[in-house]
């Protein structure tokens, strides 16, 4: 069972003139098991920074982060805001590039490509795909690694509404099929409600404002009245937070 344990995490930026900005201020968070956890917050609340630190591509100033699967280090899959595919490799080769276990990876890769509905473009180059398709490949790539932990940084924020809706469905479908721990950063509260088991709300200055448990059944439709109700409620709480931050 995978777990992410964040203990007293802080991050401070120093700029050119020696000013300090505290981006994360004592984050305590434990995510374990096959949970889908969303991190939401207004801009300036440090959510992307948090994700990058958990992924290991940014350093932290204090506290600790531990990603474990049982007694070993957890395998991580990452989905970025933009696809970040190697333009000179085909879709299939892109999926192969991030694989660590080489045995039978092609079957795995094709399986996940199929789950996002792109098995038929496996031999195309990224430049031949649309933005939404490229992002889907990015998602398939992260899943095909069969990570213990999946980190996603606002993966749909650069896409139009229709494509995002589409991709959210794909994401939920894959996740239901092969559950794993997910840490999902988004600025879209309604998206968080639709996808997550738990929502962690960050306040500006990098503290956890509150945690909301989402107890709705899956699969969830955005048109479900229960989902809509909870969305409205969370949105209201979020708006007061944003106003306080402004």
């Amino acid at each position, binding site marked *: 069972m995978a777990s992410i344990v964040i203990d007293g995490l802080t991050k401070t930026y120093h700029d050119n003139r020696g000013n300090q900005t505290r981006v994360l201020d004592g984050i305590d968070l434990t995510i374990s098991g096959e949970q889908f956890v969303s991190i939401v917050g207004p801009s300036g609340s440090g959510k992307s920074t948090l994700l990058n630190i958990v992924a*290991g*591509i940014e350093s932290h100033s204090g506290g600790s982060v531990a990603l474990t699967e049982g007694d070993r280090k957890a395998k991580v899959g990452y989905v970025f805001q933009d696809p*970040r595919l*190697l*333009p*000179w490799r085909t879709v299939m080769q892109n999926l192969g590039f*991030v694989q660590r276990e080489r045995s039978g990876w092609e079957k795995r890769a094709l399986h996940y490509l199929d789950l996002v509905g792109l098995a038929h473009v496996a031999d195309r180059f990224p430049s031949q795909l649309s933005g939404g398709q490229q992002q889907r490949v990015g998602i398939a790539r992260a899943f095909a690694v069969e990570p213990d932990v999946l*980190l996603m940084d606002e993966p749909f924020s650069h896409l139009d509404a229709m494509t995002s809706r589409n991709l959210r469905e794909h994401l939920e479908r894959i996740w239901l099929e092969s559950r794993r721990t997910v840490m999902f950063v988004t600025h879209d509260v309604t998206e968080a409600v639709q996808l997550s088991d738990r929502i962690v709300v960050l306040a500006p200055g990098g503290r956890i404002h509150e945690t909301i448990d989402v107890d709705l059944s899956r699969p969830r439709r955005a048109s479900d009245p229960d989902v809509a109700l909870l969305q409205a409620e969370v949105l209201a709480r979020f708006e007061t937070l944003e106003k306080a931050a402004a």
Partner: protein
Amino acid sequence: MSTNTVAPQVRPTRQTSTPRNQRTVRWLISVATLASVLVAWAVVAAVIDDNIVPRPLEVFARVIDIVASGEAASNFTTTLAKIGAGFALAVVAGLPLGFLMGRGAFMNSYLSLPMFVLGNVPGLTYAVFALVIFGVGPLGPVVVSASVAVPFIAINVAEGVRSVDGDLLRMCEAFERSPRDVLRHVYLPAVSAFVLVGVRYGFAMAWKVEALTEVFGAQSGVGFMIRKAYQEFQVDDMLAWTMLFVIVMILIERGLGHLERRLFAWRKELA
């Protein structure tokens, strides 16, 4: 009083010519111009009536002789082999130099000046010193080709390295790719397109300097044949070899252009 209002003249729009028509027209005009140049040449040659300005037909006869006798094949092979060897050296040297230049500002400043010098030394200097250092033989032209080509390759490789997207590198980090993987799958492909561009431009420069080097100090090759013709006052031979030389080199330059387009089809939409 009646005012004459003139309606704006509606000019009939020129019929948009199809690409095939355009190609034919271009070909026709080009051929017509070449033909008139040939005619003018023939007239001038007839008027001057001296071996120093040979008639077009004489030169074409020599071209056919040279090709038929196999002289063309053997000398061009030699020359192109030297240029090729030089380029192989240039790529071997240029890749690491370019990487260093692309990755660090210090190395960039350090290496820029030597690259500039190598690229701008006059051909005559290369030719004379090749002769002085390497004597007569193939080594001089090979080294000269390499020297002229290295700056083009290094500078383009540096640009290729700099063009590697930081975002892609971060993706590699997030997925814990090894430095070898990053080199093989990110840097090398990104850079190879630039290398080809460097080869193209380097070639355009290098073959001229190589030819000059052969004129000064070689025992075979196209440059040598041109020098021989010059020393024997055979202007028709000189022109014949020059013509063949120019045609072959233009074909190669075009070929490299096609190669670039084919190999880097994935850049299509990015360009």
